[in-house]
């Protein structure tokens, strides 16, 4: 389990995060929602170890995150940034193989190629492994990076807890590939990966997540099951819009739409 304890972050005199505490459990998908500037990405960066909090700490299996060797951390934790850019003409497969870096000593082994190809298959790019990365479209590049983090966490047989952070993973993606992302997240959760994602679309969050957190000005204002969050009157206040819950025939998932004023 990865736990954030009383995490606060102050940048340039501004409080970005205020005493946020949360647990990420293997096998569960946690979605972080909130208005722009609520501190979602900052929270993700701190939980993943990329940033240090001003106060509070992050523990992995009760061990302080920053006391774990960086390489070891790279074997069990992966992070997909909102936007990753790469100006060099690597092939698609080579980019995905970069995800195997924390597992490699010396060079790639057949296992690494297998993991990379398995990841490409999951994001629907199995036919593009030889293409140059720089020639891809925005959505394809995003999927290559998703494949890269999948390859990074690929460890068949080893059921140790792993953590995946996704910052707006559906950006740039068409509907069918948005669904791919959620399917991938769910299948990872089944393999004892704790998935934590930042997302803008409330309904997508309700669909994919086991638990939803809503951030408001750096504080965790709401947390609970998708159903509980969707039913909370607080949502309207936090997002500043009138919302209405509707029933979708054949789906148990709550669905929120904007209400006319």
């Amino acid at each position, binding site marked *: 389990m990865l736990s954030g304890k009383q995490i606060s972050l102050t940048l340039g005199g501004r409080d970005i995060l205020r005493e946020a505490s949360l647990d990420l459990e293997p096998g569960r998908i946690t979605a972080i929602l909130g208005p722009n500037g609520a501190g979602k990405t900052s929270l993700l960066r701190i939980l993943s170890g*990329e940033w240090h909090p001003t106060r509070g700490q992050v523990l992995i299996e009760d061990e302080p995150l920053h006391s774990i060797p*960086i390489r070891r*951390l790279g074997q069990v934790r992966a992070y997909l940034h909102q936007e990753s850019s790469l100006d060099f*003409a690597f*092939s698609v497969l*080579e980019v995905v193989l970069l995800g195997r870096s924390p597992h490699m000593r*010396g*060079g790639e082994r057949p296992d690494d190629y297998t993991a990379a190809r398995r990841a490409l298959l999951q994001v629907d790019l199995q036919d593009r492994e*030889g293409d140059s990365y720089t020639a891809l479209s925005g959505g394809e590049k995003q999927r290559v990076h998703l494949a890269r983090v999948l390859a990074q966490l690929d460890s068949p047989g080893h059921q140790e807890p792993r953590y995946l952070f996704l910052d707006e993973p559906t950006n740039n993606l068409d509907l069918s590939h948005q669904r791919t992302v959620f399917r991938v997240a769910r299948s990872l959760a089944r393999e004892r990966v704790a998935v934590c994602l930042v997302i803008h679309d409330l309904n997508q969050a309700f669909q994919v997540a086991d638990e939803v957190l809503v951030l408001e000005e750096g504080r965790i204002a709401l947390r609970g099951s998708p159903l509980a969050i969707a039913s909370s009157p607080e949502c309207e206040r936090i997002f500043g819009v009138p919302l209405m819950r509707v029933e979708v025939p054949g789906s148990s998932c709550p669905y929120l739409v904007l209400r006319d004023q």
Partner: protein
Amino acid sequence: MRGKQRPGTERPGGFRELGPLLGALLFLALLGLNLGPMETRLGEVLQIIGHRLTFGHWPGAVDAAHLAIIWDIRMPRILVAMAVGAALATAGACLQGLFRNPLADPGLIGVSSGGAIGSILAIATLGWLPGSGTGLLAVLHVPFWAMAGAMLTTFTVYRIARIAGKTHISTLLLAGIAVNALAGSIVGAVLYLSDNDALRRFTFWTLGSLHTAGWQSFFIMLPFIGIPLLILPRFRTALNAFLLGEAEAYHLGFNTQLTKRVVVVLCALMVGVTVAFCGLIGFVGLVVPHLVRLLWGPDFRRLIPASALLGALLVLAADLLARTINAPAEVPIGVVTSLVGAPFFLYLIHRRKRQLSV
């Protein structure tokens, strides 16, 4: 398709492409030993090399004058040219990785100029600084300040050009322009204050020249180039990850702070010592890694050794050209590399125009 047959069958760490480069380098070195105002034969050259390498136990006598010219003049110059080329090209490749930008060149982003500021101030103040007058300290005085200047500029430019975790090419190049202008004015001021003899020396130096290269400068340069060349390949996978971004490299399990510091320091050592002894030799760090990437892709496991060899090859070739094209007079080697490099740079900008936000 470029990558189709590559993955799986061939390890990117393989050194197959280095063979031809090594062969060409050897050929060019032998050619260089034969070229010059005094005519020599290949057999004689080989005999002199054998003679020196066996400490005089090689059968057959050698001519003393030829020995002096081949072993004491041409040989160190060839070795210095190769060392300088390897240093500049490797530094260029590594800095491009660190800055995540294929256009970063030690000359363009101000690293060489920082070295130039350091060394020209050191040259100008040599003599009236305490303890700088004699012995080894005096010899190391200029290279030391050149390396310090190069290091300082690299860190400064890196800090300036990084905005929210990304290096902006426009800021990077602007910072380079500023440092280059500063170096230009400092060099100008020193030139203004110099006498005729110093003026000529400085001018040659700012244009880049290997004509002072001897065994002494080679042996002083050797550790500052050789050690970085041995250490930098250890960071090849980290540099690959750096191409994705510093945060991404961290998440992929690399110690980014350590990588950054070590790479900057080692590149500054190499560029600084080069500048101190041979002046400003432009565009090698830009052109060579580019050619290597075109031929064998951007993977640092190939890029570092191949850049070192190709850099050595190209600077050696440029120096041979510089000292034979107008023999017995010499064209400054910086003029040759810039004549080739600058149009190549323009071509690259043209090709990347759409992606650049300058």
